[in-house]
Every structure is written in structure tokens, then in C-alpha cells.
């Protein structure tokens, strides 16, 4: 049975209205999938989930690459150079790197804009709080409550991180083409370490809630999958945080110098 043909008295023209709030003809001519997604809370959440997972995949690769620093300057610098030449001669110098950068930029922007818009909506939907703060049955983990500020911290960190180790703008002792040395230089300052450590802890928390939430936003529903996701989220958060933090701690303790 379709929306339009069910009324017992189809001879009366306006009778079809009775069958559905928004008959397809009256709705805007079928919006594109992208517009459909972007205009609803659930769609925007799906966008955040997908972009989040893209960034997560990148972070896993990035973290593994970082660990090459433990093999010494030659290995690490060689790896950095390889990243720029990978795919040659089919691809040109740094082409793949730029593709990755563009994709990441798009992901960060979409993730951030969606988060901003959704947060605005969420705050507007609950303009008045409860006089009684906290309740015995209210449930939210620290990771859940810190998603928004954690996201802001990570966004600021990305800017810092690029200025520090890509453009080298804020890394006074840096020299282009010597990533190993630049990393060591960055982690030799107190503020470099502090910023990095705070950001990586924020990343861990963000992932801990975000990975699981992304899966739910994308409609992963079975109870078994849910348990697996919970464990996966915790593991990922831990491994990535530890993996990333290994480098500054190695520099600080002199293992890498």
C-alpha cells in the first residue's frame, strides 16, 4: 500500500491528503543523500562518525610511523622521505601526502562544523538546567562529558602540531628535512611536552567515547557488537595514547636524543 491510494473515497481530490503528513509529491523533489544527511541530527552524527573513523585510521598509521623513531635518525628520516616519494613514478613528489592532507582537512572541517552545529542545537534544546545538580541515576562518564572541550583541545593541538613539526614555525631550533632532530627539539622544551601530553590524554578520552559512539551513530546494534565495540574503544584509546606518548617520554628520558 503506498501513501496515496488508500482512501476509500478517491473520487474526492483532497482525500489523498488524509493518508500522509508529507506526501512525496509535496516534499521537496527528493533531496540528495548528502543534503538528507546534513540536514538531520542523525545524518550529521553519521558524518561525524565517518570523518572520525577516517581520522582514527590516519592516527593509527601516524602512531606506527612515529614509533620508527626508536630505530634511530636514519630509519626515521628515511621513512619521512619515503612518505613523500611513495607511489613514484606513477605519482609525483608529495602527491599522496597531499591527497592525505586534503582528505584529513575535509574530515577535520566536516567533523568540527557538524560538532559545532550539533552542540549549538543541543545547548539550545536544554536552555535551563536543574537546580538539583547531579542525580543518583544520571549516567555519564568523564569521557562523555568532555567530548566537546576535548574536541576543541584537539583542534587547537592540530594547529600547534602543524606549526611545530610541519611548517616548523614555532619550533625555533628546527631545520627542514630533519624530522628526527625536529622531534627531539620539540620535546626538549617544557611547553612542547606539556601541550603534547595534554593533547594525547584528550585524544584518548575522545576516542574512548567517540569510537563506540561512532559505531552506534552508524547503526551497529547487536549486543555482541556493542560489547566488542566497548572493548575495542578502550583498547584503541589506550594503545594510541601510549603509542603517541612513548615518543616524548623517550626524548625526556634520553632514550631518543
Amino acid at each position, binding site marked *: *500500500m*503506498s*501513501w496515496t491510494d*488508500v*482512501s*476509500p473515497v478517491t473520487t474526492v481530490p483532497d482525500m489523498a491528503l488524509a*493518508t*500522509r*503528513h*508529507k506526501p*512525496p509529491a509535496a*516534499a521537496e523533489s*527528493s*533531496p540528495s*543523500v548528502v543534503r*538528507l*544527511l546534513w*540536514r*538531520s*541530527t*542523525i*545524518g*550529521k*552524527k*553519521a558524518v561525524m562518525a565517518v570523518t572520525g573513523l577516517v581520522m582514527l585510521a590516519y592516527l593509527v598509521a601516524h602512531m606506527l610511523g612515529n614509533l620508527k623513531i626508536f630505530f634511530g635518525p636514519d630509519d626515521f628520516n628515511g621513512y619521512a622521505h619515503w612518505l613523500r616519494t611513495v607511489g613514484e613514478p606513477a605519482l609525483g613528489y608529495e602527491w599522496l601526502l597531499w591527497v592525505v592532507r586534503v582528505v584529513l582537512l575535509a574530515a577535520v572541517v566536516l567533523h568540527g562544523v557538524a560538532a559545532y552545529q*550539533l552542540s549549538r*542545537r*543541543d*545547548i*539550545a*534544546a*536544554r*536552555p*535551563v*538546567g*536543574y*537546580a*538539583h*545538580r*547531579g*542525580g*543518583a*541515576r*544520571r*549516567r*555519564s562518564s568523564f569521557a*562523555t562529558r568532555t*567530548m566537546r572541550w576535548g574536541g576543541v583541545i584537539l583542534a587547537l593541538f592540530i594547529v600547534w602540531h602543524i606549526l611545530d613539526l610541519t611548517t616548523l614555525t614555532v619550533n625555533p631550533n628546527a631545520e627542514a628535512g630533519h624530522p628526527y632532530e625536529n622531534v627531539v627539539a620539540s620535546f626538549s622544551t617544557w611547553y612542547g611536552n606539556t601541550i603534547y601530553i595534554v593533547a594525547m590524554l584528550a585524544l584518548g578520552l575522545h576516542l574512548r*567515547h567517540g569510537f*563506540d*559512539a561512532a*559505531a*552506534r*551513530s*552508524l*547503526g*551497529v*546494534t547487536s*549486543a555482541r557488537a*556493542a560489547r566488542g565495540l566497548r572493548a575495542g574503544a578502550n583498547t584503541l584509546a589506550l594503545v594510541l595514547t601510549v603509542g603517541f606518548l612513548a615518543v616524548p617520554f623517550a626524548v625526556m628520558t634520553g632514550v631518543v636524543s
Partner: protein
Amino acid sequence: MNAPHTDTGSTAAAAPVGAAGEAPAPAAADGDMALTLRIWRQAGPEEPGAMTTYRISGISPDMSFLDMLDTLNEQLIAEGDEPVAFDHDCREGICGACGVVINGDAHGPQPTTTCQLHMRHFDDGDTIDVEPWRASAFPVIRDLVVDRGSLDRIIGSGGYITAPTGSAPEAHATAVPKAAADDAFAHAECIGCGACVAACPNGAAMLFTAAKVVHLNVLPQGAPEREGRVLDMVDAMDEEGFGGCTQVGACATACPKGIPFQSIADMNREYLRAVRKGGRG
């Protein structure tokens, strides 16, 4: 207790007893509690409101929370004050009319409706904060009464199966696997009280909407409208000014009917599926 009319005699004798009415009225002394209540009072939708403090005694642990509010109101009327307005009706936990935030929790400390919450879950001398549901989609009408019409409009946007009276096929024409029927029932139990919205830090109606989407979408009868239903209901939910889901889970904890948190992910899947299929099927 504060019966304002002790001179009428018969009102004090309690139990509805028949001819052999020698049964003593349950004692009202031992174990009774004295409480301090801080209740949100607001004279009208546009009026400012404030938490107001009341003291009440003689509260029996066997009273429901609403019996307790009734007792307070009788006391207020006796004192010439206006009683506290609160929504309530069936008092059996099924109509979904009642619902206040008690000490920060929607429906209070137990997983049930306010009318089914009993005072035995509080202690003598407690201070209890009572507030209305808070969400921009639930404007306060008076005191603890809010307007939940937004939930009805979500249902109207697609929370039904189009089956005009008289057009139904024989009930056994389509067998429904027991698992699907049970799943539908588990979600159809939603009473539309709005506790999920009140508990959600984002004022989201995701659990409410998901309950209806899943109830109807898992049934074969609901299949023809499956995509349109979820798209329209989510649209309506957004239009009403509810927030989005940040996977906090407070909704499911507050739900007096135990609608599973998982149903939100089910709705997300239904929604994305409908989007993939290009909208209203």
C-alpha cells in the same frame, strides 16, 4: 496528617469497609516521615519561577510520591494557598502523564514512574528537590506541568501504520515471527512520559522516537512505510527543537519502561538505510 476538615467525622475513618467494618484503619503514626520539599513554582508559561520550600510531616512510607504531593496540596488548600500543579492521571504507571525530576533524576531514584515511586525509598528528614521536565521542546505551563505536545507531533509525522478502518486483512494472513512480535512489544511499551528527554543533557527525544520507529519497523505490517516513517519522524523530531544524541545513555537509565538504549542505534541504522534507499521508498 493534615486533613483540613476534621469536623466531618466520617472522613477520618478510612478503609472502604463493608458491613463488618470493624477493621481498624491502618495506623498513621509509626514510621511516618517529616520532609522538606523544595518545589519549582511558576504561575504561568511567561511568569518567572523559583524553588519554594515546604515542610510536611506524617508521610507514610507506603504513600506514593504523588500521594505525598496530594497530602501537601491538601495542606496548602487548608492554609489558603494554591496547590502545586502536577500532571497525573492513571496512577498505575501506564498513562505517562506524571513525571517530575526528583533530586535531579527524572521520576526519582527508582526505575519507575513518579506515581509508582513510593516514599519508602526516602528517609525521615530528607530534603527533596522537585522540578519540572526541562527542555525547550517542553515549555513549562505551570509549576511542574509541561507541554509535551511535541511528542504527539512526532507520532503524527509517521509513527503509525496506515490501515484505514475496514481495510484490514484477516489477522492470521501474515504470521509474525514471535521474536519480531516480542521485539515490537518491548519497544511499544513506551508510555510517552518524556523522562528520556528530561534526563538527556541535550534534551533529545531520540529514545522516544526510536521506540516507535523500531516498534513499527520490525513488523511486517510496518514494512511498506519503513523508510518514510523514520525519515519523517526524525525530521519532525529535529523541527520540534529536540537536541541530538551524544550517546550518554541517561535516557535509557531514566526510562520507566526499560526501552533499551540500543534502540537508538537501531533507529540510526533505519535512518541511514532509508537515506541509502533514496528516501521515501
